[in-house]
């Protein structure tokens, strides 16, 4: 990697850590809490079909936790970044659609579980998720991720 790219990657590396940590923390907190807390958080959005809520409440925290960890470690970094960008974008769509359809938003976004110290309002999460989507897409477009398991495994193979 040439010097200029390395310099750019320092910023992207911070983005990778940020995106990974946000999702790792979010997933971890939800996994530590009773699943009903997250179910209640999702039900507050009103537009999510009730039939999907129990399944989503069990699956989403694992996806967040696993892919958050993958991105931090740099295992399948492009795919992980893409998955997390997709999740961020789906949250953006969820917040926007809820606002349009119901005319209101829940007081708490429910993104970091009930007992987390980090508790954001939906519009704050909207801004963060737009940023996360952009970071995720940029990371997914990058072919080589230095300081990653992927790079390590490549040099070893």
């Amino acid at each position, binding site marked *: 990697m040439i010097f200029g790219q390395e310099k750019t990657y320092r910023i992207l590396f911070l983005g990778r850590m940020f995106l990974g940590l946000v999702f790792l923390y979010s997933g971890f907190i939800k996994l530590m809490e009773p699943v009903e807390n997250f179910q209640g958080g999702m039900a507050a959005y009103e537009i999510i079909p009730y039939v999907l809520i129990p399944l989503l409440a069990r699956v989403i925290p694992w996806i967040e936790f696993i892919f958050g960890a993958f991105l931090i470690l740099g295992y399948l970094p492009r795919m992980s970044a893409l998955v997390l960008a997709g999740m961020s974008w789906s949250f953006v769509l969820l917040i926007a659609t809820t606002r349009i359809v119901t005319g209101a938003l829940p007081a708490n976004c429910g993104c970091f579980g*009930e007992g987390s110290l980090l508790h954001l309002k939906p519009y704050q999460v909207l801004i963060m998720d737009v940023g996360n989507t952009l970071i995720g897409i940029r990371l997914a477009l990058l072919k080589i991720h230095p300081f990653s398991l992927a790079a390590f495994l490549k040099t070893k193979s």
Partner: protein
Amino acid sequence: MKINLRSILTGVLLVLFLDGAIFFIKRNKPAPSSPLPSVAGLPTALKVRGPANAPVKLVEFSDFECPSCRAVQTDLQDFFKSYPGKIQLTFKHYPLTSHKWSIYAHQAAECMNAQGKFWPYQDKVYEKQLEWAPSTVPPVEILARYAREVGADMDRFGKCMADVAVTREIYAEKEEGNKRQVNATPTFFLGEERFVGPKEMQERGENAIRKVLGLPPKPPAPKKPEPLVPAPLKGALK
């Protein structure tokens, strides 16, 4: 990244490690550092439901704004019906910092406790959770309305709502929960055994109750479709 055997193996090991870490942390939540006096020794003026001589003494750390705490109320009612006179439940305040209106509801409930009307009020607060919790302003008026409906002396209630000493008592109970390593609501204690959330209460809690009562474990119920939302929520969303 080129997908080869080494990469696949690394991925499998990573997933196993991450899953294992979660299960290990959940399973090995630290036990309370200093056991607190048993419920039997506490004065009866506390928020206690059920007879003092009941063999099963449950302690609940709960937050009025938490959806799981509302969902578990149905299970608790079922336990009281299934094992009449055998269960004593003690309520402990555990308002989560992230729930901004929770402390108002806890203060109101404690004020109703001072008037001997804690249980009807807590039932009301849970039943109407979806009305007051999404409020954009402190739901003091809504909580006062519930108090009126339950038959409170509103003068006393009003003074009590402004009483900082009551707030201190609530946080003292929360601190008691912190000392017992409570970090999610609802958390139940049956002796030193802990159950977190409605699912654990249904799956392990009831059998622990039956064990104390000398009954055989309940056979696992035939798999029925999962409720889409907790029962009280269905009504509230109509």
